């Protein structure tokens, strides 16, 4: 399984990343998810902090687990850090497989586990005040449902 994991300030190019997953011709399906900064009220900036080294290690563990659950040919995960504006891309998960079912499922699995396990934290700036985004219990529930499958 070809794996690319990047934590970076820079933006990414979805088309280029999907093309990277299909160059060897093995993949019949690529499913991708792109997360963006949602414009909510007077949100001006979303700043992402992370735990260097653990972030990459944890994403690697999550990707490896996905690779044991589905027959994947490639996975790319790119997560941005630093200051972002509404509309900016935050995260890309792209999954290649021979068939669509595995690609769709693994993409959703990876996002559910990234949300609940990868050590990132979001801080919002609104009209001059800053506050940390609260963890959502619905994200925990989304990750837990994979345990019973």
């Amino acid at each position, binding site marked *: 399984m070809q794996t690319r994991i990047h934590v970076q300030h820079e933006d990414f190019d979805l088309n280029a990343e999907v093309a990277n997953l299909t160059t060897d011709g093995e993949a019949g399906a690529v499913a991708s998810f792109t997360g963006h900064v949602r414009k909510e009220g007077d949100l001006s900036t979303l700043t992402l*902090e992370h735990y260097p080294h653990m972030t990459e*290690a944890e994403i690697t563990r999550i990707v490896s687990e996905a690779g044991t659950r589905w027959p994947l040919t490639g996975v790319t995960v790119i*997560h941005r850090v630093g200051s972002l504006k509404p509309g900016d891309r935050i*995260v890309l998960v792209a999954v290649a497989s021979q068939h669509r079912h595995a690609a769709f499922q693994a993409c959703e699995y990876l996002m559910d586990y990234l949300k609940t396990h*990868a*050590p990132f*934290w979001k801080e919002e700036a609104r009209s001059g005040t800053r506050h*940390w*985004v609260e963890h959502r219990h619905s*994200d925990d529930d989304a990750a837990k449902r994979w345990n019973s499958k």
Partner: protein
Amino acid sequence: MILLYFAWVRQKIGKSEESLTPPVTDVASLIAHLKSLGPNYAEAFADLNRIRVAINQRHAGLDAPVGPDDEVAFFPPVTGG
């Protein structure tokens, strides 16, 4: 022991990293020790339901053992993606 703090845990404690060798053998006793160091620590660790821990860059429980050579990180529940 290397201690790392992230997000509001870092802000409440007032530093991102420190090196300590407290006489503790698990995370719970480490937290109890840290809370005794000052009101900033006591505030950061006031509600343990809002604290997560990683040992040597892996998620761990509050009952996990820790030793002098470990890297221990404290942070809020994660909010990436």
